[in-house]
């Protein structure tokens, strides 16, 4: 049975080489950082995502501050944003905050400026404040992130819309078109197409979301179920005393 976490733990797109790095002791070898960084850029170009491999990069940076590359870190964080509501973003942050001050004044480190912005974006997504997310994302203060990073990250905006779709699918049975539009920052034909891709049908002012385990309501009385192992002692005893 595929579990909810199996793709997260081992994405089907992960190669054997990467798998060995992620799961073996070789993950600590600084000379492997290039392989993992290349893999990150591959993820960015081909809309793949491998959190554990990216955490392995951050781990190498944590232990070897001289390897640190702020562009890689920003890209990892952008990828992690699209994993909400899973905690990937914070898992990444817990490894990168642990970094001494950049000693090279010629090449100013962009991360200290960008990090608060990225954190704000993450908080808005995490709190499902999607319209506010788009407002911030489109604002002037995020110009550098848009122009230097997300433009390279293929399908970044669509991945955020997938986050929205997951939240909406779980909560709504019908949602107003205007409301959904503000969540995904789309209007008119584009919005209709987005909803159609999700398999949501359209009536005059609403999209209808098919029922799924999360948006169905049911008043259940949970009855206790007794598993065999719970009774093992009792049964074992009765056979022993016969």
């Amino acid at each position, binding site marked *: 049975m595929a579990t909810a976490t199996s793709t997260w733990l081992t994405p089907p797109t992960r190669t054997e080489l990467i798998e060995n790095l992620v799961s073996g002791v070789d993950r600590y070898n600084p000379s492997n950082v290039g392989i993992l960084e290349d893999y990150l850029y591959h993820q960015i170009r081909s809309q793949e995502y491998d959190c554990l491999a990216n955490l392995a990069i951050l781990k190498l940076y944590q232990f070897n501050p001289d390897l640190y590359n702020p562009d890689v870190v920003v890209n990892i964080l952008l990828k992690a944003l699209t994993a909400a509501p899973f905690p990937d973003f914070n898992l990444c942050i817990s490894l990168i905050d642990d970094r001494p001050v950049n000693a090279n004044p010629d090449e100013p480190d962009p991360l200290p400026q960008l990090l608060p912005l990225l954190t704000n974006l993450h908080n808005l997504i995490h709190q499902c404040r999607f*319209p506010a997310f788009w407002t911030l994302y489109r604002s002037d203060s995020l110009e550098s992130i848009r122009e230097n990073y997300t433009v390279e990250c293929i399908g970044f905006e669509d991945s955020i819309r997938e986050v929205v779709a997951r939240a909406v699918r779980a909560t709504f049975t019908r949602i107003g078109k205007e409301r959904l539009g503000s969540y995904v920052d789309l209007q008119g034909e584009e919005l209709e197409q987005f909803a159609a891709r999700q398999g949501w049908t359209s009536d005059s002012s609403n999209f209808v979301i098919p029922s799924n385990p999360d948006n169905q309501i049911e008043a259940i009385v949970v009855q206790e179920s007794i598993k065999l192992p719970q009774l093992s002692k009792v049964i074992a005893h009765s056979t022993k005393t016969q």
Partner: protein
Amino acid sequence: MSQQRMALWAAEADLDEDIHDVDISLAMGSSYQGAAIYEEAAHQPSLDESALLAMAQQAAFAQIPDVVKRFIVHFHQAVLDNNLAEITAAYESGWNRLTEKYYAKTEWPEAEIIAPLVNDDQIFLILYRELYYRHVYSRLQPNIDDRFHSYENSCELFNYLLNSDGPVALELPEQWLWDIIDEFIYQFQSFCAYRAATPTKLKAKSDDELVMLSEGGTQAWSSYSVLNVLYSLIQKSRVNEWLKAKREGRSDEEIGEIVGDYGARPLYRMLGYFSIIGLLRVHVLLGDFTLGLKVMENVELTQKSTVTRVTACHVATYYHVGFCYIMLRRYPDAIRTFVQILNFVLRMRQYHTRSYQYDQINKTADRMYALFAICHALSPSRLDDNILNIVREKYGEQVTKMSKGEEGIPAFEELFLYACPKFISANPPPYDDPDALAALIEDPPTEPAQRHLTLFLSDVRAHVPVPTLRSFLKLYTSLDAAKLANFLDADEEEMVQQMMVLKQASRSVARAALGGGGASEGTEGSSSLSLLEGGYINTSDLSFAIDDNMVHIAESTVGRRYAGWFIRNTEHAQRVLDGLRASPLPGTPQQLQAAAAAAAAVKGGKPQDAQAQDGAAPATGGKKVAWGGAKVAA
């Protein structure tokens, strides 16, 4: 005093020569050189001084109480004989008793001074120093010399174990092996906290200390060297392969082939196993919660661990696994983990009071109650009412506050900081670069615990609207969104967005969804999968959906649970029956009478016992007394 200590270490130079014969290259080798530089920094004693020193050493030797000398000789002999029972007695009671009596406030005699007692046995001296430094760390204040030397001593020990020709014949009790790994990581963490460059800590350091930190500090206790030791022990012992083979139910012969010469020896296997737990702990200290759970891949979390009976190890494992789950926002898994181990600690309490680790275990348990309180606030469940009641007793005030949204955040903060691991930074401050160090003091980095607190609180903040929304929804079966917004005095659109947060808070990834289920101990379905696996579960009894602008709500209820009560009492009745059958048949009329009286006593005890529910212990105790009385009568 400090002058004398310094000189004593310097005089140790020729002793070091001997130890150098053992190849200490591995990864720790370079650090040893770092320490050698530092040795030079200490005063080189002149000839006269060394003569004086010899006298001082003799005087120090003469001062050792005879009983301590006898103890050391005896201890040494036990280690030489690999006599586990004697070693355990010396380790668990002798050492602690003498510590209380003679060394409650001072160091034990230095290894060099007692060396003549043990024929200069270097291996025993390494073990002795292991105890010596642990005593310094736990009872006294370690200075920088102690910190570097305890590191070197650990390296020598691990080096002896890993780089001798083949496995060494040494045998040590499990408890001691656990303590070696545990202490190694504790000292690592303690050193990292010590070297952290907060302005107050820097001011407290002398110039000598700063010099030593700049020269030896980057190598000694480096994260890489600590990980290297743990991984080496794991690989050498093939403990992961052993665990896997055990789970697959391989035969002893097959397992013997799989684990090889090292893994066949209990010393290596246990060190390997404890190193896995050690790795979990180091990863948590460094803020890598996924990796922490990943290294536990082959370890089964069950109550009846067949691997070790070391309680401290058991408790530490669950504490760190539970904490990882919190940081992964898998609160139901964290709750289950804490419930299991807290029940274990409660049961163990009656047997374990004599142990010197009892205090430590209790402290960790208290922190887990605090973590449980946090998880419960974020994801209420009724997995175990008993634990929940204890939590309410201990942290009632915080529990109330945490259910109150924004104003509860300080309570989360308080409990988190109290109960979280002592996080560390992976890298030392730049002691070798005065400019960078000065810049660091100008603009000090956030302390690790504060960083993780901030991350954790970001999730708590996202949860803020949840309790209020939930309590309102419970009152309705359907409700207009505008009306609800009106009640809450909130903007309608914002309130609808908060409903999505509520939805997210009502579901979670959990191992329980993998077929394990139930509050009982891990069943086969879930325990064979990595701790990181999980499926979706609903964590709330409240389900709702929004149809355009209308919120529909349904509440699930849990039927009363009888099974646990019946199972417990059936098992109890069986134990009583067993007790009756095992007792001698009545012979003479007097005995018969006495037995009847005793049976009445058992009967009388029963209802009361069923009420107490916790158990067998008082019942069997009472019965024994009754039968004992009968015998006396006969």
